[in-house]
């Protein structure tokens, strides 16, 4: 037995060294931009290796001085290149009679006199210039000039801002994020129009060079939190960041936990709301999902609609979401515990119906529920993965087969089908939590089969303790309830207090500036009593 441990220890060391050795491609050495145009072109063409969409177009400035522009076709606005770069150099330069192309000593003169493009940047390193091409910029080389000019001409096919698929809302903005980083930042900027809204860029992924943007509001978000997010982002040293899910896994507090500690959303108004509460958002180029952190357990049950609907209805909606989370977690286990251990809890008439039905049934109630739950998961997954029309058909057929045929054939008892249907419906109310309940449900199922009610109680207590021990970016996961910040509980968890009464931001996020507003109860209709009116103003 002891040798087994020793072997395991050595094995883990070996694996660690192997990981060190095969580090990814080390960043290329610096190759300075050369004075001669031909060498530069040759160098950059070598980098791109003749790939078909890389364009290098030589031309003559005023028909005398040699120059060339390089760009990746499809990533740039070709119209802009023709109008703003080529035309001035080739045509307009001819109209100015005393213009001497060779007098242009450096890129500053070029940008000062000729180019009409907005964003320009000088660049001295060829590799860096090549990377700029990949980002949709145009690189200008001029013969006998030892630096290149990078002109921003980004403009590729972008998806229009459409209605988001996830967390649809009846009343509320319909804008959803798109894949392009710039559109997303613009969408947020239009909601929070103050300069303090910072958008710090970070590029991650050795091969994917994805652009990320850490967004926060300067004097609202807790500086320590912002530092922490940036520190964690910088620790990512991976090959590629394809979508925000990668980022989420790399920087979250509890990598192997079931419960998400980072929230993702497609709606800019939700992100704006969270930023104003003092949270930090990370926008990833190439995915419409923006991450906001820290994320607390109660946020699973908050949706954008709660803030547009009137407070009492918001309370009912939240109550339903919370209850349905609990129901979808516990019902199968509770059903088994009820039928196996605590029959006296079932009211007498119901007991007769269940006894009558379960006479000829092959499986005990535990196995029966397990089968039906597995079948339900199967159908749910099939329904989602298939394209829209086929998906609908599958879920209908599945429901019919599961429901009617199984009961009539006497394979499964009706109460089990009802219980599974109830669990299915309630698990969809809050999307972020639905995948958590699918796993925990089985954990409680087994405990209930073995220990009945006691098993369920112990299971729930373990889950509660586990939740209380998680931290999301150094804020407690069950924030307003567990460490008991009572003013917050009344404000925005189960009961969404009316907006005019939310004076401070949630204390659990330790915001830099806690005061949100100085409003008081708006009463506009008792102006006939001047005394009260005056004093208030």
């Amino acid at each position, binding site marked *: 037995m002891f040798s087994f441990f020793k072997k395991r220890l050595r094995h883990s060391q070996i694996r660690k060294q192997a990981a060190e050795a095969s580090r990814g491609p080390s960043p290329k050495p610096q190759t300075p931009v050369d004075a001669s145009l031909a060498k530069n072109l040759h160098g950059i063409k070598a980098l791109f290796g003749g790939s078909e969409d890389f364009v290098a177009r030589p031309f003559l400035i005023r028909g005398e001085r040699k120059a060339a522009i390089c760009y990746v076709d499809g990533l740039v606005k070709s119209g802009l290149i023709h109008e703003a770069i080529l035309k001035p150099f080739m045509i307009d330069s001819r109209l100015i009679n005393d213009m001497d192309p060779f007098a242009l000593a450096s890129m500053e003169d070029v940008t000062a006199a000729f180019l009409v493009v907005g964003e320009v940047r000088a660049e001295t390193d060829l590799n860096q210039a090549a990377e700029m091409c990949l980002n949709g910029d145009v690189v200008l080389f001029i013969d006998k000039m030892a630096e290149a000019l990078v002109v921003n001409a980004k403009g590729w096919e972008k998806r229009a801002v459409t209605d988001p698929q996830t967390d649809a809302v009846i009343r509320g903005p319909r804008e959803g994020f798109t894949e392009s980083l710039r559109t997303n930042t613009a969408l947020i900027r239009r909601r929070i129009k103050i300069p303090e809204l910072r958008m710090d860029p970070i590029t991650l992924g050795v091969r994917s060079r994805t652009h990320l943007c850490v967004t926060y509001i300067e004097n609202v978000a807790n500086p320590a939190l912002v530092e922490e997010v940036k520190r964690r982002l910088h620790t990512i040293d991976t090959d590629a960041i394809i979508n925000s899910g990668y980022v989420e896994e790399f920087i979250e507090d509890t990598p192997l936990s079931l419960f998400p500690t980072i929230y993702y959303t497609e709606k800019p108004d939700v992100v704006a709301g969270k930023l104003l509460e003092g949270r930090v958002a990370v926008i990833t180029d190439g995915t419409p999902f923006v991450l906001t952190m820290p994320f607390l357990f109660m946020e699973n049950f908050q949706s954008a609609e709660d803030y547009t609907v009137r407070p009492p209805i918001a309370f009912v909606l939240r109550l339903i979401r919370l209850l349905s989370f609990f129901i979808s977690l516990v019902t199968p286990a509770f059903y088994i515990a009820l039928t196996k*251990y*605590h029959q*006296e*809890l079932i*009211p*007498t*008439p119901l007991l007769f119906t269940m006894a009558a039905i379960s006479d000829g049934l092959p499986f005990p109630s535990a196995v029966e529920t397990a089968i039906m739950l597995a079948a339900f998961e199967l159908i749910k997954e099939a329904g989602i993965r298939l394209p829209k029309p086929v998906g609908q058909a599958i879920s209908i057929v599945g429901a019919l087969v599961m429901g009617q045929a199984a009961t009539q054939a006497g394979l499964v008892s009706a109460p089990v089908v009802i219980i599974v249907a109830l669990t299915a419906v309630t698990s969809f109310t809050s999307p972020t939590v639905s995948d958590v309940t699918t796993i925990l449900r089985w954990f409680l199922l087994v405990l209930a089969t*073995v*220990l*009945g*009610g*006691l*098993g*369920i*109680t*112990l299971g729930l*207590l*373990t889950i*509660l*303790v*586990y939740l*209380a*021990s998680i931290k999301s970016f150094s804020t*407690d996961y*069950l924030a307003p*309830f*567990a*460490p*008991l910040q009572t003013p917050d509980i009344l404000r925005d968890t189960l009961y969404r207090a009316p907006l005019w009464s939310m004076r401070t931001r949630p204390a659990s996020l330790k915001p830099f500036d806690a005061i949100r507003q100085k409003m008081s109860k708006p009463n506009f209709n008792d102006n006939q009593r001047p005394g009260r009116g005056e004093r208030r103003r």
Partner: protein
Amino acid sequence: MNAKSRISGLQFFTVTACFLIGTFLRITSITSVLANDAWVSVFTGAVAYLPFLAVFLGLVKRYPGKSLFEINEAVFGAVAGRILSCVYTYFFTMILTTTLLDMANFIVGFIMPGTPITLVLAAFMVSCVYATRKGLEPLARISALLASGACLVLVVNSLLTVANADTRYLFPMFTLPFLRYVQGTHTTISLYFGESIVFLTLLPMLDTKTDIKKPMIASLLFAVVIAFLAVTREILTLGPLLPYVARPSYETMRIIDIETILTRIESIYAFIMISLTFFKACTLLFASASGIAQITRIESPKPILFPFGAFVVVFALQTYPIVGDFLYWSSNVSPFIFTIIEFILPLLTLLAAWTKGFIGSSQRLHVKKGAVRK
């Protein structure tokens, strides 16, 4: 366990309140001794506990932020201190075992007859150890939820049984022999109030200089109110049956019979009781584990929790296999054992601390006098 996990004053209040409610809701030995005057012993117990409390707070004032075991070593030096800590750790393990046995007998005896008791204890211990390994802070955090949940359940139950309550059961008052009142008060002090000696081991987890006097007294008062509510509810519904019933708080639940739905819901009430026992067991496990850690000088008791848990399970199974002995022990003999350990030992520590303090200050005085004379 790690140093940086801190508990705030409010959390200390919720932890102590949750612990005490867990203990008080299972007042069986009082109701069997004082039938319909059981509520008296809650108040006389509270009053009689005040000297205990004074000793407790005196120790805390003299050694703020130090756990019980550190105090022992500070007062009696390394070796003697550690022996005293051994006694305390054994005492905490004893309370832990009795709580577990009490809960296990309750489950096996009442709710799920037939399940082997080992199963119940093992499952309970695994989840307890898991929770304690996570450190005390998550437990402190959920204590607020558990305490409020317990109060809500108590109120709802009282409302449900109010239909069958009959205030005439309270009379005739004070007709029992005086010795029974002494036993009632003695049991309340030692078995219920005295167990708050455990909180001395939680002190190092507290934020630096939070004063624990106010939360401590607040939680004791809170527990007294809850205890009074629970006991009176039992007296009002069970009446003369009270002394004959093994688990009064459970039996009162069986009387609820509203329509055909809300009958026989006592097993749901039992599970709420189990979560409180879970919390109490975790705190006790933490206390005894940190005791062992202190004695054997290991820095964090986390790794030894699992074997210690296994030991407690087996120890519990072995001590009282027959339920009858256990019930007899817990209601008749344990008050004396508990009082000695909970009251007399801390009193000795305090006196020793004072005398040390006195000698110490007299030397300083002496020196000062000396200095003045020179």
